[in-house]
Protein backbone atom coordinates (compact mmCIF):
# COMPACT_ATOMS: atom_id res chain seq x y z
CA UNK A 1 0.00 0.00 0.00
CA UNK A 2 1.31 3.43 -0.88
CA UNK A 3 0.65 5.83 1.92
CA UNK A 4 -0.46 9.03 0.23
CA UNK A 5 -2.45 11.00 2.77
CA UNK A 6 -3.40 14.44 1.52
CA UNK A 7 -1.46 14.07 -1.74
CA UNK A 8 -3.17 15.31 -4.90
CA UNK A 9 -2.71 12.96 -7.82
CA UNK A 10 -3.42 13.43 -11.53
CA UNK A 11 -4.89 9.99 -12.18
CA UNK A 12 -6.49 7.51 -9.84
CA UNK A 13 -7.19 4.03 -11.20
CA UNK A 14 -9.60 1.89 -9.19
CA UNK A 15 -9.87 -1.68 -10.42
CA UNK A 16 -12.32 -3.78 -8.47
CA UNK A 17 -13.70 -7.29 -8.37
CA UNK A 18 -13.53 -10.68 -6.74
CA UNK A 19 -10.30 -12.44 -7.69
CA UNK A 20 -11.62 -15.90 -6.96
CA UNK A 21 -14.66 -15.52 -9.20
CA UNK A 22 -12.91 -15.90 -12.52
CA UNK A 23 -13.39 -12.94 -14.84
CA UNK A 24 -14.79 -10.80 -12.03
CA UNK A 25 -11.20 -10.32 -10.88
CA UNK A 26 -10.05 -8.63 -14.09
CA UNK A 27 -10.48 -5.11 -12.74
CA UNK A 28 -8.35 -5.98 -9.73
CA UNK A 29 -5.65 -7.51 -11.94
CA UNK A 30 -5.57 -4.55 -14.29
CA UNK A 31 -5.17 -2.16 -11.36
CA UNK A 32 -2.28 -4.26 -10.08
CA UNK A 33 -0.66 -4.13 -13.52
CA UNK A 34 -1.01 -0.33 -13.66
CA UNK A 35 0.51 -0.04 -10.18
CA UNK A 36 3.60 -1.80 -11.49
CA UNK A 37 4.16 0.97 -14.04
CA UNK A 38 5.23 3.09 -11.05
CA UNK A 39 4.16 6.34 -12.65
CA UNK A 40 4.47 9.36 -10.35
CA UNK A 41 1.26 10.98 -11.52
CA UNK A 42 -0.81 7.80 -11.31
CA UNK A 43 -2.14 6.04 -8.23
CA UNK A 44 -3.65 2.64 -8.79
CA UNK A 45 -5.84 0.83 -6.28
CA UNK A 46 -6.81 -2.83 -6.64
CA UNK A 47 -9.80 -3.44 -4.38
CA UNK A 48 -12.29 -6.18 -3.76
CA UNK A 49 -15.23 -3.81 -3.84
CA UNK A 50 -15.95 -0.09 -3.85
CA UNK A 51 -16.18 1.24 -0.32
CA UNK A 52 -16.95 4.70 1.11
CA UNK A 53 -13.38 5.29 2.25
CA UNK A 54 -12.34 5.46 -1.42
CA UNK A 55 -14.09 8.83 -1.57
CA UNK A 56 -11.09 10.51 -0.01
CA UNK A 57 -8.71 9.11 -2.63
CA UNK A 58 -11.13 10.14 -5.37
CA UNK A 59 -11.31 13.66 -3.98
CA UNK A 60 -7.53 13.89 -4.25
CA UNK A 61 -7.50 12.94 -7.92
CA UNK A 62 -7.99 15.09 -10.98
CA UNK A 63 -9.21 12.14 -13.03
CA UNK A 64 -10.47 8.80 -11.75
CA UNK A 65 -10.78 5.68 -13.87
CA UNK A 66 -12.81 2.71 -12.64
CA UNK A 67 -12.14 -0.72 -14.13
CA UNK A 68 -14.67 -3.53 -13.87
CA UNK A 69 -15.86 -6.70 -15.55
CA UNK A 70 -19.22 -6.78 -17.35
CA UNK A 71 -21.00 -9.85 -18.63
CA UNK A 72 -22.92 -8.29 -21.49
CA UNK A 73 -20.13 -6.76 -23.55
CA UNK A 74 -18.24 -8.07 -26.57
CA UNK A 75 -15.41 -5.55 -26.48
CA UNK A 76 -13.68 -3.15 -24.12
CA UNK A 77 -15.72 -0.02 -23.60
CA UNK A 78 -14.88 3.33 -22.04
CA UNK A 79 -17.61 5.58 -20.76
CA UNK A 80 -17.56 8.84 -18.90
CA UNK A 81 -19.36 8.88 -15.58
CA UNK A 82 -21.24 11.47 -13.61
CA UNK A 83 -22.27 11.22 -9.96
CA UNK A 84 -25.77 9.86 -9.61
CA UNK A 85 -28.54 11.62 -7.80
CA UNK A 86 -29.95 8.56 -6.08
CA UNK A 87 -27.62 9.19 -3.14
CA UNK A 88 -27.76 5.79 -1.67
CA UNK A 89 -25.71 2.70 -1.35
CA UNK A 90 -25.58 -0.06 1.17
CA UNK A 91 -23.42 0.36 4.18
CA UNK A 92 -20.17 -0.86 2.85
CA UNK A 93 -20.14 -1.14 -0.92
CA UNK A 94 -21.10 1.18 -3.74
CA UNK A 95 -21.18 1.55 -7.50
CA UNK A 96 -18.95 4.16 -9.16
CA UNK A 97 -21.67 6.76 -9.63
CA UNK A 98 -22.84 6.67 -6.05
CA UNK A 99 -19.24 6.75 -4.89
CA UNK A 100 -18.74 9.89 -6.98
CA UNK A 101 -21.89 11.31 -5.39
CA UNK A 102 -20.50 10.52 -1.94
CA UNK A 103 -17.23 12.21 -2.87
CA UNK A 104 -19.12 15.30 -4.00
CA UNK A 105 -21.17 15.37 -0.80
CA UNK A 106 -18.23 14.83 1.53
CA UNK A 107 -15.45 16.80 -0.14
CA UNK A 108 -17.22 19.07 -2.64
CA UNK A 109 -15.04 17.55 -5.37
CA UNK A 110 -16.05 16.12 -8.73
CA UNK A 111 -13.05 14.77 -10.61
CA UNK A 112 -13.51 13.78 -14.22
CA UNK A 113 -14.47 10.13 -14.12
CA UNK A 114 -14.37 7.25 -16.56
CA UNK A 115 -15.23 3.62 -16.36
CA UNK A 116 -13.48 0.98 -18.44
CA UNK A 117 -15.67 -2.07 -18.88
CA UNK A 118 -14.04 -5.39 -19.68
CA UNK A 119 -15.98 -8.21 -21.34
CA UNK A 120 -16.42 -11.14 -18.99
CA UNK A 121 -18.00 -14.53 -19.55
CA UNK A 122 -17.02 -16.79 -16.69
CA UNK A 123 -17.77 -15.92 -13.06
CA UNK A 124 -17.32 -19.38 -11.62
CA UNK A 125 -14.95 -20.11 -8.73
CA UNK A 126 -11.52 -19.73 -10.27
CA UNK A 127 -8.47 -17.53 -10.05
CA UNK A 128 -7.84 -17.44 -13.80
CA UNK A 129 -9.37 -15.33 -16.54
CA UNK A 130 -11.24 -16.79 -19.49
CA UNK A 131 -9.55 -16.40 -22.91
CA UNK A 132 -12.12 -13.75 -23.86
CA UNK A 133 -11.33 -11.60 -20.85
CA UNK A 134 -7.61 -12.27 -20.93
CA UNK A 135 -7.52 -10.98 -24.51
CA UNK A 136 -9.17 -7.72 -23.37
CA UNK A 137 -6.65 -7.05 -20.64
CA UNK A 138 -3.89 -5.86 -22.98
CA UNK A 139 -6.28 -3.61 -24.88
CA UNK A 140 -7.57 -2.14 -21.63
CA UNK A 141 -4.04 -1.43 -20.47
CA UNK A 142 -3.28 0.31 -23.77
CA UNK A 143 -6.37 2.49 -23.32
CA UNK A 144 -5.42 3.35 -19.76
CA UNK A 145 -1.85 4.16 -20.84
CA UNK A 146 -3.24 6.48 -23.48
CA UNK A 147 -5.55 8.18 -20.97
CA UNK A 148 -2.92 8.76 -18.32
CA UNK A 149 -0.48 10.08 -20.90
CA UNK A 150 -2.67 13.06 -21.63
CA UNK A 151 -0.97 16.17 -20.31
CA UNK A 152 -3.93 18.39 -19.66
CA UNK A 153 -6.46 17.62 -17.00
CA UNK A 154 -9.53 19.42 -15.91
CA UNK A 155 -11.05 19.40 -12.50
CA UNK A 156 -14.36 20.94 -11.59
CA UNK A 157 -15.76 21.97 -8.26
CA UNK A 158 -19.22 21.12 -7.01
CA UNK A 159 -20.28 24.53 -8.32
CA UNK A 160 -19.20 23.59 -11.83
CA UNK A 161 -16.20 25.87 -11.93
CA UNK A 162 -13.16 24.69 -13.77
CA UNK A 163 -9.88 25.13 -11.91
Amino acid at each position, binding site marked *: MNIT*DNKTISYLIIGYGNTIRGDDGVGYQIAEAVAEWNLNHVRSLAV*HQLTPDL*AEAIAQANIVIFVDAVATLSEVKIEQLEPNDAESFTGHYADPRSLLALTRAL*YKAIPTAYRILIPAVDFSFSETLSPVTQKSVDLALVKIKRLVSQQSSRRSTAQGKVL
Partner: protein
Amino acid sequence: MKTVVIDPVTRIEGHAKISIFLDEAGEVSDARFHVVEYRGFEKFCEGRPFTDMAGITARICGICPVSHLLASSKTGDKILAVKIPPAAEKLRRLMNLAQITQSHALSFFHLSSPDFLLGWDSDPAKRNVFGLIEANPDLARAGIRLRQFGQNIIELLGARKIHSAWTVPGGVRSPLSEESRQWICDRLPESLATINLALGLFKGMIDGQLKDEVNIFGEFPSLFMGLVGKDGEWEHYGGHLRFTDSQGNIVAENLSEDDYQDFLGEAVEKWSYLKFPYYKPLGYPDGIYRVGPLARLNVCSYIGTEAADRELNEFRDRSGGVATSSFLYHYARLIEILACLEKIQTLMDDPDILSNRIRAHGGVNQLEAIGVSEAPRGTLFHHYKVDENGLIEKVNLIIATGQNNLAMNKTVAQIAKQYIHGNGNSNEIPEGLLNRVEAGIRCFDPCLSCSTHAAGQMPLHVELIASDGTILNQIYRD
Protein backbone atom coordinates in the same frame (compact mmCIF):
# COMPACT_ATOMS: atom_id res chain seq x y z
CA MET B 1 -54.00 -14.23 13.30
CA LYS B 2 -52.34 -11.59 11.16
CA THR B 3 -48.73 -11.59 10.07
CA VAL B 4 -46.62 -8.53 9.43
CA VAL B 5 -43.53 -9.35 7.43
CA ILE B 6 -40.47 -7.14 7.02
CA ASP B 7 -38.31 -8.54 4.24
CA PRO B 8 -35.43 -7.94 4.12
CA VAL B 9 -34.09 -5.99 7.03
CA THR B 10 -32.15 -3.02 5.66
CA ARG B 11 -28.69 -1.80 6.62
CA ILE B 12 -27.41 -5.08 7.99
CA GLU B 13 -24.97 -7.43 6.37
CA GLY B 14 -26.76 -10.19 4.48
CA HIS B 15 -30.52 -10.51 4.31
CA ALA B 16 -33.25 -11.66 6.61
CA LYS B 17 -36.96 -11.51 7.02
CA ILE B 18 -38.95 -10.56 10.08
CA SER B 19 -42.40 -11.95 10.68
CA ILE B 20 -44.54 -10.33 13.30
CA PHE B 21 -47.55 -12.36 14.32
CA LEU B 22 -50.65 -10.46 15.37
CA ASP B 23 -53.60 -11.94 17.18
CA GLU B 24 -57.21 -11.22 16.21
CA ALA B 25 -57.14 -8.00 18.18
CA GLY B 26 -54.15 -6.79 16.17
CA GLU B 27 -51.75 -7.05 19.09
CA VAL B 28 -48.36 -8.68 18.66
CA SER B 29 -48.33 -12.21 19.92
CA ASP B 30 -44.88 -13.25 18.68
CA ALA B 31 -42.11 -12.39 16.25
CA ARG B 32 -39.55 -14.36 14.30
CA PHE B 33 -36.30 -13.33 12.74
CA HIS B 34 -35.87 -15.61 9.75
CA VAL B 35 -32.62 -16.10 7.96
CA VAL B 36 -33.27 -17.30 4.47
CA GLU B 37 -29.80 -17.68 3.06
CA TYR B 38 -27.79 -20.87 2.87
CA ARG B 39 -24.31 -21.46 1.50
CA GLY B 40 -22.91 -24.61 2.99
CA PHE B 41 -19.32 -23.70 3.87
CA GLU B 42 -19.18 -26.41 6.49
CA LYS B 43 -19.87 -29.00 3.80
CA PHE B 44 -17.84 -27.89 0.83
CA CYS B 45 -14.69 -27.44 2.89
CA GLU B 46 -14.52 -31.21 3.41
CA GLY B 47 -11.53 -32.63 1.56
CA ARG B 48 -9.63 -29.32 1.46
CA PRO B 49 -6.23 -28.94 3.18
CA PHE B 50 -6.61 -27.33 6.57
CA THR B 51 -4.05 -24.76 5.45
CA ASP B 52 -6.59 -23.51 2.91
CA MET B 53 -9.26 -22.93 5.51
CA ALA B 54 -8.16 -19.43 6.52
CA GLY B 55 -8.44 -18.23 2.93
CA ILE B 56 -11.70 -20.08 2.29
CA THR B 57 -13.52 -19.06 5.44
CA ALA B 58 -12.32 -15.48 5.14
CA ARG B 59 -14.41 -15.31 2.00
CA ILE B 60 -17.55 -15.92 3.99
CA CYS B 61 -17.65 -12.21 4.50
CA GLY B 62 -16.15 -8.99 3.21
CA ILE B 63 -16.65 -7.12 6.49
CA CYS B 64 -14.93 -9.35 9.00
CA PRO B 65 -12.71 -11.71 7.03
CA VAL B 66 -9.93 -11.13 9.58
CA SER B 67 -12.00 -12.84 12.24
CA HIS B 68 -12.10 -16.04 10.24
CA LEU B 69 -8.43 -15.73 9.32
CA LEU B 70 -7.52 -15.57 12.99
CA ALA B 71 -9.83 -18.30 14.28
CA SER B 72 -8.77 -20.58 11.43
CA SER B 73 -5.08 -19.87 11.93
CA LYS B 74 -5.38 -20.56 15.65
CA THR B 75 -7.03 -23.87 14.81
CA GLY B 76 -4.20 -24.57 12.38
CA ASP B 77 -1.65 -23.73 15.09
CA LYS B 78 -3.12 -26.51 17.19
CA ILE B 79 -3.12 -28.99 14.30
CA LEU B 80 0.57 -28.25 13.84
CA ALA B 81 0.97 -28.35 17.65
CA VAL B 82 3.19 -25.24 17.55
CA LYS B 83 3.48 -22.21 19.77
CA ILE B 84 3.68 -19.18 17.53
CA PRO B 85 6.43 -16.59 18.14
CA PRO B 86 5.47 -13.70 20.47
CA ALA B 87 5.80 -11.16 17.66
CA ALA B 88 3.40 -13.15 15.50
CA GLU B 89 0.79 -13.07 18.24
CA LYS B 90 1.26 -9.32 18.64
CA LEU B 91 0.84 -8.81 14.91
CA ARG B 92 -2.29 -10.97 14.84
CA ARG B 93 -3.63 -8.96 17.76
CA LEU B 94 -2.87 -5.74 15.89
CA MET B 95 -4.85 -6.93 12.92
CA ASN B 96 -7.79 -7.95 15.08
CA LEU B 97 -7.80 -4.60 16.87
CA ALA B 98 -7.87 -2.88 13.47
CA GLN B 99 -10.63 -5.20 12.35
CA ILE B 100 -12.79 -4.44 15.37
CA THR B 101 -12.17 -0.72 14.86
CA GLN B 102 -13.22 -0.67 11.22
CA SER B 103 -16.20 -2.95 11.68
CA HIS B 104 -17.56 -1.04 14.66
CA ALA B 105 -16.97 2.25 12.84
CA LEU B 106 -18.95 0.97 9.88
CA SER B 107 -21.76 -0.17 12.16
CA PHE B 108 -22.00 3.09 14.06
CA PHE B 109 -21.36 5.73 11.44
CA HIS B 110 -22.80 4.14 8.32
CA LEU B 111 -25.48 1.76 9.48
CA SER B 112 -26.86 3.15 12.73
CA SER B 113 -26.12 6.84 13.23
CA PRO B 114 -28.49 7.97 10.46
CA ASP B 115 -31.30 6.71 12.69
CA PHE B 116 -29.93 8.41 15.79
CA LEU B 117 -29.23 11.76 14.19
CA LEU B 118 -32.12 12.02 11.78
CA GLY B 119 -34.82 10.22 13.73
CA TRP B 120 -36.72 6.98 13.18
CA ASP B 121 -39.54 8.75 11.40
CA SER B 122 -37.44 10.76 8.99
CA ASP B 123 -37.58 10.26 5.25
CA PRO B 124 -36.03 6.85 4.46
CA ALA B 125 -34.48 8.32 1.30
CA LYS B 126 -32.41 10.56 3.56
CA ARG B 127 -31.92 8.26 6.52
CA ASN B 128 -28.58 6.96 5.29
CA VAL B 129 -24.99 8.09 5.07
CA PHE B 130 -25.94 10.91 2.70
CA GLY B 131 -28.42 12.21 5.23
CA LEU B 132 -25.69 11.99 7.82
CA ILE B 133 -23.38 14.00 5.60
CA GLU B 134 -26.04 16.67 5.23
CA ALA B 135 -26.76 16.75 8.98
CA ASN B 136 -23.22 16.57 10.22
CA PRO B 137 -20.57 16.52 7.47
CA ASP B 138 -17.65 16.67 9.88
CA LEU B 139 -18.89 13.62 11.76
CA ALA B 140 -19.52 11.79 8.51
CA ARG B 141 -16.02 12.50 7.22
CA ALA B 142 -14.47 11.61 10.55
CA GLY B 143 -16.37 8.34 10.68
CA ILE B 144 -15.30 7.34 7.20
CA ARG B 145 -11.67 8.14 8.04
CA LEU B 146 -11.91 6.15 11.27
CA ARG B 147 -13.06 3.11 9.34
CA GLN B 148 -10.37 3.76 6.76
CA PHE B 149 -7.77 3.79 9.57
CA GLY B 150 -8.72 0.28 10.58
CA GLN B 151 -8.88 -0.89 6.97
CA ASN B 152 -5.49 0.60 6.19
CA ILE B 153 -3.82 -1.15 9.11
CA ILE B 154 -5.22 -4.43 7.81
CA GLU B 155 -3.83 -3.60 4.38
CA LEU B 156 -0.44 -2.54 5.77
CA LEU B 157 -0.16 -5.90 7.48
CA GLY B 158 -1.75 -8.18 4.93
CA ALA B 159 -1.29 -6.32 1.64
CA ARG B 160 -5.07 -6.31 1.11
CA LYS B 161 -7.97 -4.72 3.01
CA ILE B 162 -10.25 -7.65 2.37
CA HIS B 163 -9.48 -11.38 2.27
CA SER B 164 -5.84 -10.99 3.11
CA ALA B 165 -3.89 -14.29 3.16
CA TRP B 166 -1.48 -13.02 5.78
CA THR B 167 -2.22 -15.02 8.93
CA VAL B 168 -1.40 -18.69 8.53
CA PRO B 169 -1.06 -21.72 10.81
CA GLY B 170 2.19 -21.11 12.69
CA GLY B 171 2.15 -17.34 12.60
CA VAL B 172 1.95 -14.65 9.95
CA ARG B 173 3.57 -14.23 6.56
CA SER B 174 5.29 -10.88 6.84
CA PRO B 175 6.42 -8.42 9.52
CA LEU B 176 5.36 -4.83 10.08
CA SER B 177 7.63 -2.21 8.53
CA GLU B 178 8.84 0.90 10.34
CA GLU B 179 7.15 3.04 7.68
CA SER B 180 3.84 1.35 8.39
CA ARG B 181 4.33 1.65 12.12
CA GLN B 182 4.95 5.35 11.75
CA TRP B 183 1.85 5.82 9.60
CA ILE B 184 -0.27 4.13 12.27
CA CYS B 185 1.22 6.33 14.99
CA ASP B 186 0.60 9.47 12.93
CA ARG B 187 -3.08 8.66 12.40
CA LEU B 188 -3.86 7.55 15.96
CA PRO B 189 -4.50 11.02 17.43
CA GLU B 190 -7.13 11.81 14.81
CA SER B 191 -8.83 8.45 15.35
CA LEU B 192 -8.87 8.96 19.11
CA ALA B 193 -10.39 12.40 18.64
CA THR B 194 -13.11 10.94 16.43
CA ILE B 195 -14.10 8.23 18.85
CA ASN B 196 -14.17 10.66 21.75
CA LEU B 197 -16.42 12.92 19.69
CA ALA B 198 -18.73 10.00 18.90
CA LEU B 199 -18.84 8.89 22.54
CA GLY B 200 -19.77 12.37 23.73
CA LEU B 201 -22.46 12.63 21.09
CA PHE B 202 -23.97 9.23 21.80
CA LYS B 203 -23.98 9.66 25.58
CA GLY B 204 -25.87 12.90 25.08
CA MET B 205 -28.40 11.13 22.91
CA ILE B 206 -29.10 8.28 25.32
CA ASP B 207 -29.65 10.91 28.00
CA GLY B 208 -32.05 12.67 25.69
CA GLN B 209 -33.84 11.63 22.54
CA LEU B 210 -32.86 7.95 22.74
CA LYS B 211 -33.84 7.38 26.37
CA ASP B 212 -36.89 5.29 25.52
CA GLU B 213 -35.00 3.10 23.10
CA VAL B 214 -32.63 1.99 25.85
CA ASN B 215 -35.63 0.57 27.71
CA ILE B 216 -37.44 -0.91 24.74
CA PHE B 217 -34.84 -2.24 22.27
CA GLY B 218 -33.98 -5.62 23.67
CA GLU B 219 -33.99 -4.92 27.39
CA PHE B 220 -34.14 -8.33 29.05
CA PRO B 221 -32.00 -10.53 31.28
CA SER B 222 -29.69 -13.08 29.71
CA LEU B 223 -26.29 -14.65 30.12
CA PHE B 224 -23.31 -13.06 28.44
CA MET B 225 -20.25 -14.83 27.03
CA GLY B 226 -16.84 -13.67 25.93
CA LEU B 227 -13.10 -14.18 26.14
CA VAL B 228 -11.24 -12.72 29.12
CA GLY B 229 -7.58 -12.72 30.09
CA LYS B 230 -6.09 -14.51 33.06
CA ASP B 231 -7.00 -11.65 35.41
CA GLY B 232 -10.40 -11.12 33.83
CA GLU B 233 -9.26 -8.35 31.52
CA TRP B 234 -11.06 -7.61 28.25
CA GLU B 235 -9.81 -9.94 25.55
CA HIS B 236 -10.24 -10.23 21.80
CA TYR B 237 -7.73 -12.89 20.76
CA GLY B 238 -6.70 -15.24 23.57
CA GLY B 239 -7.55 -16.08 27.17
CA HIS B 240 -10.45 -18.23 28.30
CA LEU B 241 -14.22 -18.09 28.04
CA ARG B 242 -16.42 -16.66 30.77
CA PHE B 243 -20.19 -16.59 31.24
CA THR B 244 -21.83 -13.98 33.45
CA ASP B 245 -25.47 -13.26 34.25
CA SER B 246 -27.55 -10.08 34.38
CA GLN B 247 -26.61 -9.46 37.99
CA GLY B 248 -22.92 -9.58 37.14
CA ASN B 249 -22.31 -12.97 38.73
CA ILE B 250 -19.77 -15.24 37.08
CA VAL B 251 -21.75 -18.31 36.04
CA ALA B 252 -18.83 -20.22 34.52
CA GLU B 253 -15.26 -19.38 33.73
CA ASN B 254 -11.85 -20.72 32.79
CA LEU B 255 -13.68 -22.51 30.02
CA SER B 256 -11.57 -23.65 27.10
CA GLU B 257 -12.77 -23.51 23.52
CA ASP B 258 -11.56 -27.12 23.25
CA ASP B 259 -14.52 -28.14 25.42
CA TYR B 260 -17.14 -25.92 23.77
CA GLN B 261 -19.41 -28.87 23.08
CA ASP B 262 -19.75 -29.41 26.83
CA PHE B 263 -21.28 -25.99 27.42
CA LEU B 264 -22.69 -24.88 24.04
CA GLY B 265 -25.56 -26.57 22.27
CA GLU B 266 -26.96 -25.70 18.82
CA ALA B 267 -30.68 -25.99 18.22
CA VAL B 268 -32.31 -25.84 14.80
CA GLU B 269 -35.70 -24.38 13.86
CA LYS B 270 -37.56 -25.15 10.64
CA TRP B 271 -38.12 -21.51 9.75
CA SER B 272 -34.52 -20.29 9.69
CA TYR B 273 -31.15 -21.36 8.31
CA LEU B 274 -29.49 -19.69 11.29
CA LYS B 275 -28.79 -22.11 14.14
CA PHE B 276 -29.75 -21.31 17.76
CA PRO B 277 -26.77 -21.74 20.10
CA TYR B 278 -27.57 -21.90 23.81
CA TYR B 279 -25.79 -22.48 27.14
CA LYS B 280 -26.23 -26.20 27.63
CA PRO B 281 -26.56 -26.39 31.42
CA LEU B 282 -29.71 -24.26 31.20
CA GLY B 283 -31.15 -26.00 28.14
CA TYR B 284 -32.92 -24.54 25.09
CA PRO B 285 -34.21 -21.83 25.02
CA ASP B 286 -33.57 -20.86 28.65
CA GLY B 287 -29.83 -20.94 27.95
CA ILE B 288 -30.07 -17.74 25.92
CA TYR B 289 -26.85 -15.76 25.96
CA ARG B 290 -25.44 -12.75 24.14
CA VAL B 291 -21.99 -12.23 22.64
CA GLY B 292 -20.25 -9.24 21.10
CA PRO B 293 -19.41 -5.77 22.41
CA LEU B 294 -22.11 -5.64 25.08
CA ALA B 295 -21.21 -9.09 26.33
CA ARG B 296 -17.45 -8.46 26.28
CA LEU B 297 -17.85 -5.35 28.41
CA ASN B 298 -20.17 -7.19 30.80
CA VAL B 299 -17.99 -10.26 31.27
CA CYS B 300 -14.64 -8.52 31.65
CA SER B 301 -13.38 -7.23 34.96
CA TYR B 302 -11.59 -4.31 33.31
CA ILE B 303 -10.19 -3.31 29.91
CA GLY B 304 -6.64 -2.40 30.83
CA THR B 305 -6.25 0.98 29.13
CA GLU B 306 -6.80 4.30 30.84
CA ALA B 307 -9.44 6.09 28.79
CA ALA B 308 -11.39 2.96 27.90
CA ASP B 309 -11.54 1.89 31.56
CA ARG B 310 -12.81 5.32 32.46
CA GLU B 311 -15.54 4.94 29.86
CA LEU B 312 -16.26 1.39 31.02
CA ASN B 313 -16.82 2.60 34.57
CA GLU B 314 -19.20 5.29 33.35
CA PHE B 315 -20.96 2.71 31.14
CA ARG B 316 -21.50 0.49 34.17
CA ASP B 317 -22.68 3.39 36.31
CA ARG B 318 -25.23 4.35 33.66
CA SER B 319 -26.42 0.75 33.32
CA GLY B 320 -26.74 0.07 37.02
CA GLY B 321 -23.85 -2.36 36.94
CA VAL B 322 -24.64 -4.70 34.05
CA ALA B 323 -25.87 -3.43 30.70
CA THR B 324 -28.82 -5.60 29.74
CA SER B 325 -30.34 -3.38 27.06
CA SER B 326 -29.41 -4.49 23.54
CA PHE B 327 -29.57 -0.85 22.46
CA LEU B 328 -26.41 -0.34 24.47
CA TYR B 329 -24.50 -2.48 21.99
CA HIS B 330 -24.01 0.82 20.13
CA TYR B 331 -22.44 2.40 23.21
CA ALA B 332 -20.32 -0.69 23.83
CA ARG B 333 -19.01 -0.56 20.28
CA LEU B 334 -17.72 2.94 20.78
CA ILE B 335 -15.96 1.99 24.00
CA GLU B 336 -14.39 -0.99 22.26
CA ILE B 337 -13.11 1.24 19.46
CA LEU B 338 -11.45 3.39 22.11
CA ALA B 339 -9.97 0.31 23.75
CA CYS B 340 -8.67 -0.91 20.41
CA LEU B 341 -7.02 2.40 19.60
CA GLU B 342 -5.31 2.54 22.98
CA LYS B 343 -4.11 -1.03 22.63
CA ILE B 344 -2.85 -0.30 19.11
CA GLN B 345 -0.82 2.55 20.60
CA THR B 346 0.66 0.17 23.16
CA LEU B 347 1.65 -2.27 20.45
CA MET B 348 3.25 0.50 18.39
CA ASP B 349 5.43 1.34 21.39
CA ASP B 350 6.56 -2.30 21.69
CA PRO B 351 9.88 -2.78 19.82
CA ASP B 352 8.99 -6.44 19.28
CA ILE B 353 6.25 -5.38 16.87
CA LEU B 354 8.87 -4.97 14.14
CA SER B 355 10.46 -8.39 14.70
CA ASN B 356 11.10 -10.74 11.80
CA ARG B 357 10.54 -13.83 13.95
CA ILE B 358 6.96 -14.35 12.94
CA ARG B 359 6.39 -17.97 12.01
CA ALA B 360 6.73 -21.44 13.49
CA HIS B 361 6.64 -24.54 11.32
CA GLY B 362 5.34 -28.02 11.88
CA GLY B 363 3.50 -30.95 10.38
CA VAL B 364 0.12 -32.52 11.08
CA ASN B 365 0.46 -33.42 14.74
CA GLN B 366 -3.15 -33.25 15.90
CA LEU B 367 -6.15 -34.57 13.98
CA GLU B 368 -8.75 -32.39 15.69
CA ALA B 369 -8.53 -28.81 16.86
CA ILE B 370 -10.68 -25.86 17.87
CA GLY B 371 -9.70 -22.22 17.54
CA VAL B 372 -11.50 -19.23 19.04
CA SER B 373 -11.28 -15.51 18.49
CA GLU B 374 -13.44 -12.50 19.24
CA ALA B 375 -14.89 -11.15 16.03
CA PRO B 376 -16.40 -7.65 16.11
CA ARG B 377 -19.83 -9.20 16.53
CA GLY B 378 -18.82 -11.78 19.11
CA THR B 379 -17.06 -15.05 19.78
CA LEU B 380 -16.14 -17.16 16.80
CA PHE B 381 -15.25 -20.85 16.89
CA HIS B 382 -13.61 -22.92 14.16
CA HIS B 383 -13.59 -26.68 14.75
CA TYR B 384 -11.76 -28.94 12.28
CA LYS B 385 -11.19 -32.66 12.06
CA VAL B 386 -8.46 -33.65 9.61
CA ASP B 387 -6.92 -36.86 8.31
CA GLU B 388 -3.24 -37.80 8.51
CA ASN B 389 -2.57 -35.66 5.43
CA GLY B 390 -4.25 -32.60 6.91
CA LEU B 391 -7.31 -32.82 4.69
CA ILE B 392 -10.54 -31.64 6.29
CA GLU B 393 -12.92 -34.43 7.27
CA LYS B 394 -15.37 -32.33 9.23
CA VAL B 395 -15.92 -28.65 10.00
CA ASN B 396 -18.12 -26.88 12.49
CA LEU B 397 -18.25 -23.10 12.65
CA ILE B 398 -20.04 -21.28 15.45
CA ILE B 399 -20.48 -17.73 14.36
CA ALA B 400 -20.96 -14.66 16.51
CA THR B 401 -24.24 -13.53 15.01
CA GLY B 402 -25.68 -17.03 15.35
CA GLN B 403 -25.06 -16.97 19.07
CA ASN B 404 -27.17 -13.82 19.29
CA ASN B 405 -30.03 -15.46 17.41
CA LEU B 406 -32.27 -16.09 20.41
CA ALA B 407 -31.59 -12.59 21.68
CA MET B 408 -32.41 -11.02 18.30
CA ASN B 409 -35.73 -12.83 18.21
CA LYS B 410 -36.52 -11.66 21.72
CA THR B 411 -35.59 -8.09 20.82
CA VAL B 412 -37.82 -8.04 17.75
CA ALA B 413 -40.77 -9.35 19.76
CA GLN B 414 -40.25 -6.76 22.48
CA ILE B 415 -40.09 -3.84 20.09
CA ALA B 416 -43.00 -5.07 18.06
CA LYS B 417 -45.15 -5.37 21.18
CA GLN B 418 -44.32 -1.80 22.09
CA TYR B 419 -44.98 -0.18 18.74
CA ILE B 420 -47.39 -2.31 16.73
CA HIS B 421 -50.97 -2.45 17.83
CA GLY B 422 -54.23 -3.34 16.21
CA ASN B 423 -55.75 -0.28 14.66
CA GLY B 424 -59.14 -1.27 13.45
CA ASN B 425 -59.57 -1.57 9.71
CA SER B 426 -56.43 0.29 8.69
CA ASN B 427 -53.73 -1.83 7.04
CA GLU B 428 -51.11 0.88 7.02
CA ILE B 429 -47.70 0.04 8.44
CA PRO B 430 -46.00 3.32 9.31
CA GLU B 431 -42.39 3.42 8.16
CA GLY B 432 -41.19 4.48 11.59
CA LEU B 433 -42.57 1.34 13.23
CA LEU B 434 -40.93 -0.94 10.72
CA ASN B 435 -37.66 0.86 11.07
CA ARG B 436 -37.69 0.50 14.84
CA VAL B 437 -38.06 -3.25 14.55
CA GLU B 438 -35.26 -3.41 12.03
CA ALA B 439 -33.18 -1.10 14.20
CA GLY B 440 -33.57 -3.53 17.05
CA ILE B 441 -31.83 -6.09 14.90
CA ARG B 442 -29.17 -3.55 13.95
CA CYS B 443 -28.23 -3.20 17.62
CA PHE B 444 -26.57 -6.58 17.25
CA ASP B 445 -24.88 -5.50 13.99
CA PRO B 446 -25.63 -8.95 12.67
CA CYS B 447 -23.73 -10.39 9.78
CA LEU B 448 -26.02 -12.86 8.17
CA SER B 449 -23.56 -13.48 5.37
CA CYS B 450 -21.30 -14.84 8.07
CA SER B 451 -23.74 -16.59 10.31
CA THR B 452 -25.16 -18.75 7.57
CA HIS B 453 -21.77 -18.61 5.94
CA ALA B 454 -23.87 -17.19 3.21
CA ALA B 455 -23.99 -14.83 0.31
CA GLY B 456 -26.55 -13.82 -2.21
CA GLN B 457 -29.20 -11.26 -2.91
CA MET B 458 -32.83 -11.66 -1.91
CA PRO B 459 -35.74 -9.75 -3.32
CA LEU B 460 -37.18 -7.14 -1.00
CA HIS B 461 -40.74 -7.70 0.05
CA VAL B 462 -42.84 -6.82 3.09
CA GLU B 463 -46.27 -8.29 3.46
CA LEU B 464 -49.11 -7.66 5.86
CA ILE B 465 -51.15 -10.82 5.88
CA ALA B 466 -54.57 -11.33 7.38
CA SER B 467 -55.41 -14.39 9.43
CA ASP B 468 -57.16 -15.90 6.44
CA GLY B 469 -54.05 -15.51 4.26
CA THR B 470 -55.21 -12.43 2.41
CA ILE B 471 -52.39 -9.99 1.63
CA LEU B 472 -53.58 -6.70 3.07
CA ASN B 473 -50.57 -4.60 2.17
CA GLN B 474 -47.18 -4.97 0.50
CA ILE B 475 -44.02 -2.89 0.67
CA TYR B 476 -41.03 -3.32 -1.60
CA ARG B 477 -37.55 -2.06 -0.79
CA ASP B 478 -34.41 -2.05 -2.95
